[in-house]
Structure formats: structure tokens, C-alpha cells
């Protein structure tokens, strides 16, 4: 891992839900609930380093509806992407089949994409992305990380290079500002799982 690698943070949404919503409800439903959970996550992130990669874990969440998925996933991503510093990256864990439609739906509605674990240690891009972005992301995911001088292995032509730039800009991969090496986000959070 590079010296300027982001700080890894693990956030259990099920635990945040219990802590931030004063009720015994286990479902991540209704917009105020989603808002409360997102704000609790944001508070946790404010304590992180200058650059962080967060593993947002939905494994213990029973139901997530569209309103909550919009608040917890789409709005969280959108806020950090809009920030010029772009100092937070996200991986969403435990987004199993019952959650996937809702997460995918809210991402697509706002033309966002996210790195999501849909089965144990199985990561995929979810949301809106181009074929080129998908191909480059898949190649990087398979290699886990690649040095700056070997980037052509995942982005062999101009369209691939543009797709890689877009993936970096969209917070879907991490590129070290010092070494130029490129890392799959799943690799950066692997030790948290």
C-alpha cells in the first residue's frame, strides 16, 4: 500500500441505526431514519484522516427502502463527490439481493456509481457507468492494484485512459498522488472484512 493511502474506516450501518434512531426498529426505512443514519456516518467520518476509505456495512440491516437508500448511499456519495477535496471514498458491504434493487435504483436516478459487495468478497460496480469504465474497473479489480508504469495493462488505449480518469474522479478507484499507482477500493478495505 502507498504512503498516501487513505485511512480505512469500518462503519456498521446496523449498529449506527440502533445508535442514532431512538427506537427498536431494525429496518432502514423512512427518510428521517436514513437522514439520521447518514448524519451519524458523517460525524464518524469527520474524525478520520485527511483522506479516508470507508467500508459501509449493510450486513445487519433487514430492510432498506428507496428513501433510506437515497439518504444513506446516494446523498453520502454525492456530498463527498461535490466536495473539492474529495477526501472520502466508499465501499458498500453486505448489499445482498434484497438491498441491491434499492441501492441500484437510487444510484441510477442520480447517475452515480458505487463499489458494492454483493456476496462475500465479491465486489461489483453498481449504478450508472460506461462500458469502458466497467472494463477498466473489472481489470483493476482482478489485479487489485497496479503501478503507474503498468497502467496500460488495465487501460490499454485512449478510451481506457479516459475511463480510468473518470473512475478516479468518481471515487470508484484510488490513485496515489505520490506514486501514481492505482488501487481497487476493495483491496484498500480488505483487512477490515
Amino acid at each position, binding site marked *: 500500500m502507498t504512503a498516501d493511502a487513505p485511512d480505512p474506516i469500518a462503519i456498521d450501518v446496523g449498529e449506527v441505526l440502533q445508535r442514532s434512531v431512538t427506537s427498536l*426498529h431494525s429496518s432502514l426505512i423512512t427518510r428521517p431514519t436514513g437522514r439520521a443514519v447518514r448524519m451519524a456516518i458523517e460525524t464518524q467520518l469527520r474524525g478520520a484522516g485527511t483522506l479516508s476509505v470507508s467500508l459501509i456495512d449493510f450486513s445487519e440491516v433487514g430492510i432498506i427502502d428507496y428513501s433510506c437508500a437515497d439518504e444513506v448511499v446516494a446523498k453520502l456519495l454525492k456530498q463527498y463527490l461535490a466536495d473539492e477535496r474529495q477526501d472520502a471514498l466508499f465501499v458498500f458491504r453486505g448489499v445482498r439481493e434484497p438491498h441491491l434493487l434499492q441501492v441500484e435504483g437510487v444510484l441510477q436516478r442520480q447517475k452515480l456509481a458505487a463499489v458494492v459487495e454483493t456476496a462475500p468478497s465479491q465486489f461489483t460496480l453498481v449504478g450508472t457507468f460506461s462500458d469502458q469504465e466497467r472494463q477498466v474497473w473489472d481489470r483493476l479489480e482482478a489485479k487489485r492494484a497496479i503501478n503507474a508504469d503498468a497502467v496500460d495493462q488495465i487501460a490499454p488505449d485512449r478510451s481506457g485512459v479516459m475511463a480510468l480518469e473518470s473512475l478516479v474522479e468518481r471515487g470508484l478507484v484510488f490513485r496515489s498522488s505520490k506514486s501514481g499507482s492505482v488501487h481497487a477500493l476493495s483491496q484498500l478495505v480488505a483487512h477490515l472484512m
Partner: protein
Amino acid sequence: MDQSSIDEFLDEVVQFKGERVLFDARHLRWVDPNGMVGLLLAGSVAGETLGMRPRIELPDNADVQGYLGRMGFYSHAQKVFECEEDTSGAVSRASDVLLEITAINTNHDVHEIVDQVQGRASAMLTSKLGYPSSSVIPFSVMLSEVCQNIIEHADGPGWVAAQAYNWAKRLGRFVIVISVMDRGRGFKGSLSDEHSARYGDRWSDSTALEAAFLQGLTRFADPGRGQGLQQIRKQVRKWSGLISARSGTARISQVPEWDDSPPMVDGMAPLPGTQISITLPAVVGP
């Protein structure tokens, strides 16, 4: 009284001009969730207009009485109507009742409803409708979104009820009927400030319904809003179901092949609020 007759009944209530009103339900022989929740809505609308609770004569048919009791109608009716005490006595929860009539006022109510319905929905969706066991999650999500619609957009009280029953004559299979009604400001009222100018003279209940139901328009500038109804429609279509929404003078429907409802009805009486009905049919065998 069900989805097919509810508009006529509600129109009559809205257009009533007298000083006193009696809801004579003595000869009611059949009522589904749309009928029950519709009765409460009608009583509530009449009460608001008259400034006093209207009177209701409860059904004299024992089956209908028992059914209303099982759905928890009487306790809600006491708050809306001048009526006799519930004479049906305490009744155990029936196997066909998915969700008793429940008032929706806060997000806490939505949590309660979703928590409460999951166990029963799982059994009912698989045994009565033949849906996979995993369907309980999208069903719960759908219920959550449709109930939140009242809190987020209506700014007024509402009710929800759901029940499974055999549509032997009409469809030859089981269905689950979900009814959600409120007497809030309706789609036109919710969207007017932000969107009416763009529509000019065409702005009406029907255009507001089309904008919300078909295009996902909301009063919020936030692009993440307005997807609840869109996703409900998508899920209902996936299950070959019927979803229909009335707001004010118009009703819009997403109609499956087994139903012949018109996609849009306009020119009804100006009923307050929004009324949504969802009918999910059993899967047809292989």
C-alpha cells in the same frame, strides 16, 4: 364496496350539500380494504365539511360485521363517526388479514406497519400468491414507500389496510389488496407551487397525477426525491398487479392485462387527498 364502486360513493359524499348526513351501511354485503378505508375517509371528509361527526348505521350482516371487526374498523370508526359501540366483540386475528386498518400520522407508524406486516406477509405472499419467499422484502419496501407518501406529501392524516382474499369469480385466483388513503392536499396541492406555472392552463388534478405518477415529479428540488411511486409502479408491474391513484377529480391507473380499468378518469368530484389502491394477483400456475 370495493375499488370498482368507491369513486361513485366518495363523489356522492363530496357533493352532498345537506346539514346532516347519515352513512347507512346496514345493507352492505361486501367490503374490501378500499371500501373500509374509503368509508373512514368519507366520514372524515363529511365531518370536516359539516363541522360535526356524521352518523353511521353499521352493517346488519353478521359476516360483514365480523369482517369489519377483524380488520379493526370499529375502533377507527368511533373516531370518525357517531356510531354504536362495536358489537362484534373481541375477535382473533384472521388468517386473511394482512394488515388491519392502521392510521398513519408519523414515520414511527410506518416503522410499526413494516415491522408488523413482515411475518404475515411472508406466509401470505408464498402460500396465497405463490410468490418466492424473498418477495417479502420488496413487498415491505413497497408498503413503506406508499405509506410515507402520506407523511411526505399529504400533510394530513391517512389510513392503510391490506388483506388477501380469493377473487374466485373475477380472476379465479387469490389477490392481496392494499389500500392507502388520506385527506391531505393531494398531488395537485403538493406540486402546485413549484410546477403549476410550467403547465399553465393545463394544470389540473389529472396533469398533476401524470406528473407525479408517471414522471416522478415532486415539490422538492432534491433529485433523489420522487422515486418512491416510480419504484412502486415498477414492482407492481413485475408482479402483474394493478395500481391506481386518485387525487382530487382524477384517477390514474397502471393497468395489467387481466383488468380493464381506464388508464385515466377525470371529471370526478373534488375529493381531498390521495387514494392509492394496489392489487397483487397470485401467479398463474405453469
